């Protein structure tokens, strides 16, 4: 049996699962020390299911803690941002285009060093080791405890990042070092940004991981625990301590994957309807389709693998106008319990419409009895059209797919949607996040530019697949369960035939002893 936990900004959720079956799920407020909130929710879920702590084989945790720290500029360390491969990149030093306050918080300690490789792995110049030694001295003098190292084309050739880390560690043994090739993909500025942010989280990540550890210890759960990363796969705690930035945006991924499990579908559309907006995304092979555009976190541009989610202004609190012809995009939001008609307010909301239609019984039904049948019909029609068009917009082909409804506002959808083969409303949808964490697999990914000189496309592609699978095994996947789930190949535009960018993702089931 496994437990999935989602530590959100407001609530900490837990779901106890036996295989794909949810035995019990509950919510509890998130606490500032994180750990007592986890203890509370774990106690609750164990009590409600009667499962002994000793029967738990693994615990999976999803958290927004690290994202919030960057967004709030709190609990961050100053960072030595080291960059290799001068003279390339010199035009734009580290932390270019960052919000001023965040760059200030991290101290603007930037260092640029000669040495580096090309896209095909050729060495341009050896690493300037004497310069790294000098930087180490400077790091000691300034009392810095965290550093990031980013080298051009390190996703192709990580050697120089590794060597520079070795030298720094020799001289400053307790320095926390973030290496960019472990974090990101091709796209230098974005990868460096993520590495610098990662370094700034070094202290917090140790604290948070140890609070997770303590919470489980307190309840005598001796099972191993894992933390979910942004692509919906798991990391071991040691890895999270070193690479907390990889947890960024794991929430939406877990929620979508949880919905998929609850509905028993691998290829489907998910609509998460809240009070103000609906988030619509697509599941392919059980994983969310990823966004192709740069993702902004705390004002910093990154290239993390985020689910491609479309937010539309449709929620339980959306304001109804023009006799139902117009719904939203504005909403009464959290004031729904005072401003909507059924709760005694004076604003007609989408929730009032479904109550007036007799589809739900919320608040005081008599207060919506005056709404004309035509308005109700028109409003329901508008709501379904909004949802349907959002689903259609996020699909990758015209074929109808199942639509899975989650979130508190899912009561708004009562009819079939033309773009959907069927509409599914799973049980336990409110804890889809925690369930998504509980069912997570482990993965390995390759995203790099491959030179085609002196080799063939097939050989290169085969090598990339093997390497991704190997990475999944190394991350803790069970032998024999690893599958390649996604291959993307993009020949380099404007350089015909010379190179190709290949991205391969492999996942497997977690090997639980």
């Amino acid at each position, binding site marked *: 049996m496994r437990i999935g936990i989602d530590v959100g900004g407001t609530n900490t959720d837990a779901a106890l699962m036996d295989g794909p079956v949810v035995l019990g799920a509950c919510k509890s407020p998130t606490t500032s020390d994180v750990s007592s909130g986890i203890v509370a929710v774990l106690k609750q879920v164990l009590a409600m299911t009667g499962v002994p702590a000793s029967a738990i084989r693994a615990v999976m945790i999803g958290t927004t803690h690290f994202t919030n720290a960057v967004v709030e500029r709190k609990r961050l360390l100053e960072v030595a941002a080291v960059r290799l*491969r*001068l*003279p*390339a*990149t*010199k*035009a*734009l030093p580290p932390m*270019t*285009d960052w919000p001023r306050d965040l760059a200030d918080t991290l101290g603007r300690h930037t260092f640029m060093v000669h040495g580096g490789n*090309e*896209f095909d792995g*050729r060495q*341009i*110049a050896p690493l300037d080791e004497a310069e790294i030694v000098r930087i180490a001295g400077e790091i000691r003098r300034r009392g810095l405890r965290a550093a990031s190292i980013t080298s*051009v*084309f390190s996703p192709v050739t990580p050697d120089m990042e590794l060597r520079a880390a070795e030298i720094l560690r020799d001289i400053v043994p307790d320095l926390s070092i973030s290496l960019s090739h472990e974090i990101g993909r*091709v*796209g*230098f*500025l974005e990868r460096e940004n993520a590495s610098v942010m990662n370094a700034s989280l070094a202290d917090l990540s140790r604290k948070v991981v140890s609070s997770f550890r303590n919470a489980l210890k307190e309840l005598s759960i001796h099972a191993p625990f894992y933390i979910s990363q942004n692509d919906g796969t798991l990391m071991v705690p040691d890895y999270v301590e070193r690479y907390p930035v990889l947890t960024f945006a794991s929430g939406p991924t877990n929620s979508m994957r949880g919905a998929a499990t609850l509905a028993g579908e691998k290829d489907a559309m998910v609509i998460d309807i809240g009070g103000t907006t609906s988030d619509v995304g697509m599941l392919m092979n059980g994983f969310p389709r990823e966004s*192709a*555009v740069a993702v902004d976190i705390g004002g910093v541009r990154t290239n993390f693998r985020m689910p491609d989610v479309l937010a539309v202004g449709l929620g339980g609190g959306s304001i109804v106008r023009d006799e139902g012809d117009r719904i939203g995009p504005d909403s009464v939001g959290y004031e729904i319990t005072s401003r909507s008609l059924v709760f005694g307010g004076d604003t007609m909301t989408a929730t009032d419409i479904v109550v007036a239609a007799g589809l739900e019984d919320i608040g005081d039904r008599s207060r919506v009895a005056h709404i004309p049948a035509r308005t109700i019909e028109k409003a329901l029609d508008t709501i379904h059209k909004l949802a349907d068009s959002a689903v*259609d*917009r*996020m*699909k*990758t*082909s*015209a074929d109808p797919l199942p639509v899975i409804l989650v979130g508190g506002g899912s009561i708004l959808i009562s009819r079939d949607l033309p773009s959907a083969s069927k509409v599914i409303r799973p049980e336990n949808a409110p804890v889809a996040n925690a369930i998504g964490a509980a069912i997570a697999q482990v993965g390995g990914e390759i995203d790099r*530019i491959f030179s085609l000189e002196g080799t063939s496309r097939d050989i290169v592609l085969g090598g990339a697949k093997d390497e991704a699978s190997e990475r999944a095994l190394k991350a803790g996947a069970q032998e024999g369960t690893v599958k390649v789930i996604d291959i993307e*190949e*993009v*020949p*380099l*535009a*404007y*350089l*015909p*035939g*010379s*190179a190709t*960018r290949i991205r391969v993702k492999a996942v497997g089931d977690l090997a639980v002893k």
Partner: protein
Amino acid sequence: MAYITNQDIEDLSVGAALLGTGGGGDPYIGKLMARAALEKYGQVDLLPLDKVPDGMNLVACGAMGAPTILIEKMPSGDEIGLALRTYERRTGRKVDAIIPFEAGGINSMMPIMLAAEARLPVIDADGMGRAFPQLEMETFNVYGVPASPVALADEQGNAVIVETKDAAKAEFLARGVTIRMGGQSYLVNYGMDGATARRVSVPGTMSLAIGIGRTLREAAAGHRDPLDALISFFRTTHYETARVIASGKVVDVSRREQNGWSVGVVTIEPFDASRRPVTIQIQNENLIAEEDDKVLAIVPDLICVLEADTAMPITTERLRYGQRVNVLGIKVPPIMRTPEALDVFGPAAFGLKKPYAPLEA
């Protein structure tokens, strides 16, 4: 004389992406670099083409290579200056002003960087009037300016001079050098005097790109329809005609590799159910838009896929099923529509069977 402000660079990055007609590279890194260059070296003047003196010694500049390389191996910032010095040494003459060779995509930014560093003005004109994939696809070449000598430089301080009899061969050799330079090079070529530049350049394209960005920004701020604003803006320029040639939903995007180029077809289903689906053929840039067999717009006229809500340009790699788009056809100025010009960058130059037909008003 007008000079280029930080706001202009923001606007230019949007307008240049639109003139990129789906290709030309994301101007983001170029924008950051142009901004840094202005900060370091001070203002850059933008000189209208008709104000260029006869005897002024001009040279064109830009980058060559794969945008995918550029986003990883960012420039040192010294490459293009080295290319200029190499060029000046080879020709034995000082350059007086920089003319962009491509106002679409990231190459709109390189001339600003170079001009800032060399403290020279940028001419408000270019040789493509949009984005094209190859060095010979220039009005400069069409109207007789030799592409050679080409001075290419990389971030290591290497520089190469390419001298050939014709522009297509210069393109071929320069691209080979670019691969050896690690997939990205910075180059200076198409030297000419002011009188020639006035005859062979597409005028006003830098201010056109800035104007496009400004129009979209101001429309968004004033809650006006951005597409209407854009079409009205084009009417005030020498491109004159910009017309919505399709409006609908992307229902299919197919991409494949052909001879090392990324080619594809995007299909758009019109909102107006009485109209037939529209297809756009892509080869880095958008080449031809058709409704069944009827050509709606064809290269060199611009085919720009814009987000329906914001009228912001969508690059080829970001196209996907379900997007609501307006496709804007934009007629290029007469200098790009002559038989000589069409020989170099008309439909046949891209292997298309259909003849050029100017976008109808």
